[in-house]
Structure formats: C-alpha cells, structure tokens
C-alpha cells in the first residue's frame, strides 16, 4: 500500500464534456486514488413538478419531453399512461401499438447516444459518429410523423397527436434491416476493442445488493445480474404480446456489473428493441388514433403511481388530483436521478480517469436529474 498523502478535493465540472451536461463532481483524492465522489446537481433545475401544478393535464405533456430529452417519446408515454389510468380511459389498440413502436425506436436512439458518447469518454470517436448517423434515421422517422426531431409532444392523454404517415411502416422496416448490420459493425468497432475492454472491464463493479439498496434500475441494474424489466415484470400497454429477451450482465470480459457489462447490456437491448418493433409492425391494427382523446380532463379526487421502463430505468409518475383541471401534486421518480446516487460507491478506490469511465457507463441525462 502506498504512503498516504494529504487529501485533495477536486471539482470536476460543471462545464466538462464528459459529465454529459452540467454536473459538478466533488472528487476527494488521495494522490491519484479516489476516496469519495459527491455529485452536486441542480444546475438545470426548472421547477417542473411545481410548474405542473399550474398547468392543466394536456399542457404538461411538452414539459415531460424536456426531462429526459434523449428519450422524450418515452417520458410522455409514461405520463399519458399515468393520466389515463387516473381517468380510467382505455385507448384504442392502434394507439398502444404506435406508442410501443415509437417508444422502442426511442430506446434505440437513446442507447445509441449512450454507447456513442461512452466511446468518446474513453477515447473512441468514430463509433460516436456512427451512433449519431443511425440515430438520425430514427429522428427522421419521428419528424415525419410528428414534426419534431427531439421534443415531440406526441403521446397525448388518450391518444397520439398524429396518425402514422403511409411511408412510416416501410421506412421503419428498411431502417431495422439496415440497423441490424450497423450494430454488428458497431460491435466490431467498439465492444470487442482491446483498448476499450481494458478501460471498462473490472472497472466500477456494482454488486447486485448495492444496486438494489440504492434503487438502481434499468440497464445498470440488469448489468449487475438481476432480470428486472418492467416491460416483463409489470407489463403495461401491449408489451405482454411480444416475445423478447431481457439481457443481463454476465461478466463476460471481467466481473458481473462492471462498466463493460453496463455498456454491453445496452447494445443487446437495442437488438431486443428491434425484435419488438418488428413484431409490433406486423401486428399493427387499423383505427382512429384520436377517438379516445378526452375533450376536457378533470379526474376525480384521488392519486396514482404509474411506472414504465424508460431507456434509463424505472420512470414513475405520482399524480394527486383534487378534482380540478390542474394536478394538485406531481412527483416524478426519475431513473437518472436515482442511478446517479450510486456514483460515490462505484468510484471508491479507482483512479481519476476511471471516474469518467464510470460516469459514462451509468448514462445519466442531466435534464432529468434536475428536472
């Protein structure tokens, strides 16, 4: 064991490219070794929850998009589902399928950014551009349908804003065909790259009990070896009709729950999403997407907690209604926020350079951490 030196506090951020936004990490150092990491958040705080109390239920939808802006489709999906459960609305089959297709496309897009930027953190630039290239095709599909590339305002309470364009289904099929090949290339380029494995395998190992204790969800939890996915364990929408696997970390290149596992679970989840979309496109029924949209949303007094499996983990909406057109209270359980709390535990005993590798592997979006 090396000689203990005087501890030093180093501030990483808030303006640092590898923090994926405005996050300040207070890193306590003993020489090159990390003793503790304290994340300081709030630089992007926009009072979303308080703001929601002043708006009616429809007007909140565009603001849910702005939480996890890389997975906007899924945020509004979760919100719409929560309010529909509160109101007791049954949406048409077609809407359910469209939402699943959009949500899974969004999952691919979100994971592409996650693994792409992770490559940049480690020092690989090409996979990042390849990821963005493929994400661009998904954004074009979204743009064709609802007119926006990032903040869609698509999943409304009781339906979706626009029906699918006639070209949407063939274009999505074409994209999926292309994307399968692209994913193989991505794997050869980054996943099995020797330098990449050196930087990520056995780094930032998250044991399963720690993950569960901290409430970590999503790919980070699954990488630690637990098969927990709300799409299977607590099925919502029409997810129970599709056949897909839940990828879990196996410690293929190092220990179960290390950075490489967290990275690779995302890659395999994209493959599973492709499967879901293919099945959903085959089963897509006809119908009117606007028929169940209520004219005026005024739920009865009561509350609801509804959760969905966002690309980052469990996204929950807790809504209390006092019988007026505005929610009395709205609480969001954001996966990025909860996943970030485990940061200090993961970094202990690692080197400074590993902090970046660990932070990138838990894939946070600061728009949702701060809300």
């Amino acid at each position: 064991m090396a000689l203990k030196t005087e501890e030093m506090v180093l501030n990483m951020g808030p303006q640092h490219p590898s923090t994926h936004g405005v996050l300040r990490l207070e890193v306590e150092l003993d020489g090159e070794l990390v003793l503790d990491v304290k994340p300081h958040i709030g630089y992007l705080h926009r009072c979303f929850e308080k703001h929601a109390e002043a708006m009616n239920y429809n007007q909140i939808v565009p603001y849910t998009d702005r939480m996890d802006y890389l997975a906007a489709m899924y945020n509004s999906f979760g919100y719409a589902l929560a309010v529909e459960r509160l109101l007791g609305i049954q949406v048409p089959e077609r809407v359910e399928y469209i939402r699943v297709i959009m949500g899974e496309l969004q999952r691919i897009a979100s994971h592409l950014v996650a693994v792409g930027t992770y490559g940049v953190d480690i020092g690989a630039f090409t996979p990042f551009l390849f990821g963005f290239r493929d994400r661009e095709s998904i954004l074009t599909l979204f743009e064709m349908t609802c007119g926006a590339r990032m903040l869609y305002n698509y999943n409304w309470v009781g339906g979706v804003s626009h029906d699918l364009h006639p070209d949407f289904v063939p274009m999505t099929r074409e994209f999926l065909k292309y994307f399968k090949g692209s994913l193989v290339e991505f794997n050869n380029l980054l996943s099995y790259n020797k330098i990449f494995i050196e930087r990520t395998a056995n780094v930032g190992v998250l044991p399963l009990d720690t993950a569960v204790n901290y409430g970590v969800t999503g790919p980070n939890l699954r990488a630690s070896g637990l098969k927990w996915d709300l799409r299977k364990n607590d099925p919502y929408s029409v997810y129970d009709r599709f056949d897909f696997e839940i990828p879990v970390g196996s410690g293929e290149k190092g220990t179960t729950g290390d950075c490489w596992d967290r990275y690779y679970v995302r890659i395999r989840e994209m493959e599973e999403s492709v499967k879901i979309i293919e099945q959903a496109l085959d089963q897509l029924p006809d119908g009117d997407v606007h028929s169940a949209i209520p004219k005026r949303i005024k739920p009865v007094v009561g509350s609801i907690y509804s959760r969905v499996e966002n690309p980052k983990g469990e996204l929950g909406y807790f809504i209390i209604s006092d019988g007026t057109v505005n929610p009395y209270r709205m609480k969001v359980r954001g996966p990025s926020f909860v996943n970030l709390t485990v940061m200090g535990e993961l970094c202990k005993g690692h080197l400074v350079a590993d902090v970046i590798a660990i932070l990138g592997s838990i894939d946070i979006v600061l728009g949702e951490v701060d809300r």
Partner: protein
Amino acid sequence: MPEKKREKDLTIAEKLYIPEIVKGLGLTLKSMFRPKFTMEYPEVKFIPPASYRGRPVLVQEESGTERCVACGLCSRVCPSLAIEVQASETSLEKERYPVKFEINMLRCIFCGFCEEVCPEEAIVMSKDYELVFRDRSEAIYGKDKLMVPIRQVEDRIEFLRNFK
C-alpha cells in the same frame, strides 16, 4: 482497492500494430464510398417535410386579411404563455379580428398546441427554423412578422387535414 486483472501481453502480430492499422484504414476506405449523411448547412439548406413544426405563423388570405377571428383559444392553450391576442370588431364577414397578435419567440416551445386547437386553421406551424434576434424586444413577433401568405403554408394545411 480491488485487484484488477488486466490483459497486458500482446502477441507479436499485435505488437507490430500494422495489421490493426490496415484494418482501421480499411474502414476509412469503406466509409469513403458510403453515401454522405451530413449536409453543408449554410450553403445547402435543410428543407423540412410538411410535418415539420417550425415557428408558428398566421395565415394570410389571398385578400390580404388574416384568417384569425381572435377567439383567443391559442393563447389559452399555450403552455408557456407566449401568445397575446387583442380582439376588435370588423365589418368583414368574420366580424372579429385581432388588433394585436404577439408571439414571444423566446417563450415559444414549438409544441404545436396553438395550431391543434385553432378552429379556423388560422395559425399553423411553418417550416421556418432560422430564428435570430439581436435583442429581446426583437424576439416579440407582431402581426407584421407573423402573417404569411397562404401559398407558403399550403402543404402544412394539407398535412393537418390528413393527419390531425
């Protein structure tokens, strides 16, 4: 500190680096013949599809008047309170028109609710995405900047009729 098991030993082929460099350059060469997915933006302009939600505009009829009847629904539905409408009476058939119609483009979040709620198809989202202001007061668009001849937004209205 956890003990790390990391592979350090390289084979002779790996030590030479040349096969790896050739493999890397192979991908570079392959990429050169793939279709480009970037656009040289200021020279080549991105032309959005009809579904695109650019800045909201007021539809100007062939006669030169606006379609808007100043009902104020758009300003009520706007989540970011960006729209201000002041109505007045007119001798035209529609009876009411907006004396003042202002959209604060610093507040607008391009959600498209105004367009969705409009009963007259009078406010639509255009394809205009290049918004530049020199100061804050310039960002408040009045009727002079919002009115757009109906010819320019025809495909958007067509899109709304099909998909809204």
